[in-house]
């Protein structure tokens, strides 16, 4: 195989994996045309599930597997894929970064299509610097933190970061813009334009969502994504070289790689083309020592060299490659920070004292401490939720739980017969369960209470009881009593007054979502009473 072919093989693999990633991301939703065989309905319970392996890239990502193993002492589903990537890195170096990683591919594309630096400045930018130790610091920091019970790997893990950015910021952003166009078209009096808008909506909604998707801190997630992409103008693949903890992890394993960059200094004319095209700042130049741990296996240097001074070759002799330049400071600093962070994260008392009442976790979530050990903050549960109720937290879960999922009932509600989020969680922070289990146990995520000052019948303003109507349990957790109340003009008004039966309430929040009092509804849901927490119980 010629070198040129190797580079093209890399490009094609990169594109294929990026497309596969985007495909899996887009199909992480309930499609419009889901059919169930209702003749089976009386005999069986068919749970709605995704047909595609939505968590594939998370299984492929060894950082997800290792951090969950360290913190939660559990092997995630499909961890063998991640183990395979580790073995692959031990044989071939960071090929995951060069060939498979969708975020790496994006950076590669952004950095190469319009390079910011030219000529010798690019050569200068591609020299290895001590900045590149930062990623080892981050890796050690996260793994040490994970070992002590706070898994923050997902904040910087490239797969989780890319999924979160695209699912919670990029797609909803474009979706909102498109929907604005279609709504404007639909409002027009020209039949042609309205038809066009319907057709357009049918075409785009499977990708951008069937309703207006909104996520708390979505703008911030999007901003960070843009900044990370922009960093490629300072140095090509800035993220992969300097920040990516997964890259650091694979770099450490690449020490054993048998695919090595062979150098022939006698052929070298010091043209610097290899360094100019190097994506990882891995010192490919023949008179320098090849930094295996920094090399992204893009084969650019091999391809660029006009003098046959470089070649990637398999060498089966047992000789370790150059050791990764971690640096004492990164190691010690990472360990210190990693030891400190799980305890700093508990300073706000969210875990040990009393948790925020708004911290309503998706149904099936593990108890808070175990949840934080496993949650990758990837946003997959938020993407699949059909009502858009699951949102990233801002302060609700404290510092330790930033961007973990929680339910905002004014945005959506938890569907009584839906357990989709539990079926897609890559690490099992939301444990998988069926609808039967959710209903029969029942799995409570919180409880509702009535704000009588706002409630229309309680305040004597009007009959209402929408909350009682929409309450999904049987018998209903919201019941009504007939009573006379005093209306504003002093008249007596006969109304039905709603009450909550805490024994039956599961905290699904549909009452809060459908309450006619907007913004701060007259019936609201709090986390108290959630079945995952012993301490948060209300009733004896």
């Amino acid at each position, binding site marked *: 195989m010629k070198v040129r072919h190797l580079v093209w093989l890399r490009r094609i693999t990169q594109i294929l994996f990026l497309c596969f990633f985007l495909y899996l991301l887009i199909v992480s939703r*309930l*499609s*419009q*045309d*889901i*059919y*169930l*065989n*209702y003749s089976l*309905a*009386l005999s069986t319970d068919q749970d*709605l599930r995704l047909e595609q392996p939505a968590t594939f890239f998370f299984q492929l990502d060894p950082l997800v597997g290792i951090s969950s193993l360290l913190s939660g002492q559990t092997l995630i589903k499909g961890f063998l894929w991640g183990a395979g990537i580790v073995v692959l890195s031990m044989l071939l170096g960071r090929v995951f970064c060069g060939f498979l990683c969708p975020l790496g591919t994006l950076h590669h594309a952004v950095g190469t299509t319009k390079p910011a630096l030219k000529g010798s400045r690019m050569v200068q930018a591609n020299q290895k610097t001590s900045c590149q130790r930062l990623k080892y610091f981050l890796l050690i920091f996260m793994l040490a933190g994970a070992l002590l019970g706070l898994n923050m790997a997902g904040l910087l893990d490239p797969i989780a970061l890319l999924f979160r950015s695209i699912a919670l910021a990029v797609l909803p952003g474009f979706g909102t813009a498109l*929907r604005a166009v*279609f*709504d404007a*078209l*639909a*409002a027009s*009096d020209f039949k042609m334009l*309205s038809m066009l*808008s*319907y057709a357009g*909506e*049918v075409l785009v*909604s499977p990708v951008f969502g*069937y*309703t*207006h998707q909104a996520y708390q801190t979505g703008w911030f997630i999007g901003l960070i994504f843009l900044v990370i992409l922009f960093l490629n103008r300072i140095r090509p693949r800035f993220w992969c070289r300097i920040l990516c903890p997964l890259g650091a992890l694979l770099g450490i394993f690449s020490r054993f790689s048998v695919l090595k960059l062979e150098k022939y200094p006698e052929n070298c004319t010091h043209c610097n083309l290899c360094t100019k095209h190097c994506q990882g700042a891995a010192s490919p130049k023949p008179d320098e020592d090849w930094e295996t741990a920094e090399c992204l296996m893009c084969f650019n240097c091999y391809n660029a060299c006009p003098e046959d001074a470089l070649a990637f070759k398999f060498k089966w002799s047992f000789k370790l490659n150059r050791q990764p330049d971690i640096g004492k400071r990164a190691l010690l600093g990472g360990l210190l920070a990693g030891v400190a962070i799980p305890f700093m994260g508990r300073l706000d008392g969210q875990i040990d004292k009393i948790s925020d009442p708004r911290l309503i976790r998706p149904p099936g979530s593990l108890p808070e401490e175990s949840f934080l050990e496993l949650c990758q903050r990837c946003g997959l549960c938020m993407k699949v939720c*059909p*009502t858009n109720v699951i949102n990233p937290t801002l302060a609700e879960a404290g510092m330790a739980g930033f961007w973990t999922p929680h339910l905002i009932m004014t945005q959506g509600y938890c*569907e*009584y*017969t*839906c357990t989709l989020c539990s079926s897609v969680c890559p690490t099992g922070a939301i444990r998988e369960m069926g609808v039967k289990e959710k209903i029969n146990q029942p799995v409570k995520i919180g409880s509702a209470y009535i704000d009588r000052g706002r409630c*229309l019948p309680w305040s004597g303003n*009007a*009959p*209402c*009881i*929408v909350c*009682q*109507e*929409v*309450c*999904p*349990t*049987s*018998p*209903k957790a919201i019941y*009504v009593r007939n009573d006379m109340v005093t209306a504003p003009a002093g008249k007596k008004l006969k109304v*039905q007054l709603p009450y909550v039966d805490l024994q039956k309430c599961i905290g699904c929040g549909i009452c809060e979502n*459908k*309450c*006619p009092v907007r913004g701060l509804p007259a019936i609201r849901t709090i986390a108290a009473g959630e079945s995952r927490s012993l301490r948060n119980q209300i009733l004896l």
Partner: protein
Amino acid sequence: MNFEKAITRRESIKKLLRVSGCLTFSGTTAFATNSAESGRPATANNGFMVEGVGETSDYDVKELTRKTFEAAGGISKFISKGDVVVVKPNISWARRPEMAASTNPTVMEAVIELCQEAGARKVRIADNTIHDVRRCFALTGAGMVAKNTGADLIYPRSSLMRRMKLQGNRLDIWPVFVPLVEADKVINLPVAKHHSLSVLTLGMKNWIGAVGGRRNKLHQDIHMTIVDLAQFFNPTVTLIDGIRIMTRNGPSGGSTSDVVQKNTLILSNDPVAADARAARLFDRKPEQIGFIKLGQKWGLGTYDFQKLVRKKVTL
């Protein structure tokens, strides 16, 4: 039509001419034939009601639906060749059919097949659901029906809700689910079930699922808004599904213990009469139910069954 936009002088004159012309024409014809009693002579005079009851233990629901329509004179009496027909079931809640929270999918399938046999150009299933619509389509069996029959499932997207003038007592301008007003024929296909606020939800209340906007406000005067909507959406025919009825914990239900088998279908072109008959399935007197009483008062129909041509088919 956009009612928010100011109307120009020319348009208003055109409209006035058109309306006055129509009025003169209908006035003269009415005078000539001397038969128009009210704005809705069709239902008032030619009102009929067919009850289909499955009495044997293993009767076929589809067959019962067909027989019921045959007794009313056949589907071709209502659906003409080339019509765009919209079937409005009640599939508001993502519940399995046996919970009786939604229209029986077998009945729905039979009705759609009948329409297709009558030569309907297109049959559409449209409902603005309360639960997430994709889950409603899947769990209630409506999706399966659409797949089996080739009917279109209309997804209630925001651009399909358009503000219209309802000219009701309580509701003036409200967003309406467009396919229902653009259809040539509309078949109202509700399920009979208990409702905590309006006592029962039957045919007329089914129109709450045909509008958009902040529907939870409608609860503040539920009976009047039901009647307002029923006078706006005047269906070709109403078929109330009483195969399984939900007798308590409505309208959402969620347990088979709330469900009673009644094996009854009620077909009528009089929305009030159909609801009144369905109320009897729950042992309720029609006049005790607010929207039925108001419906008769506002001339939508009658719950005096003597005024109707009544038939009964059994299987």
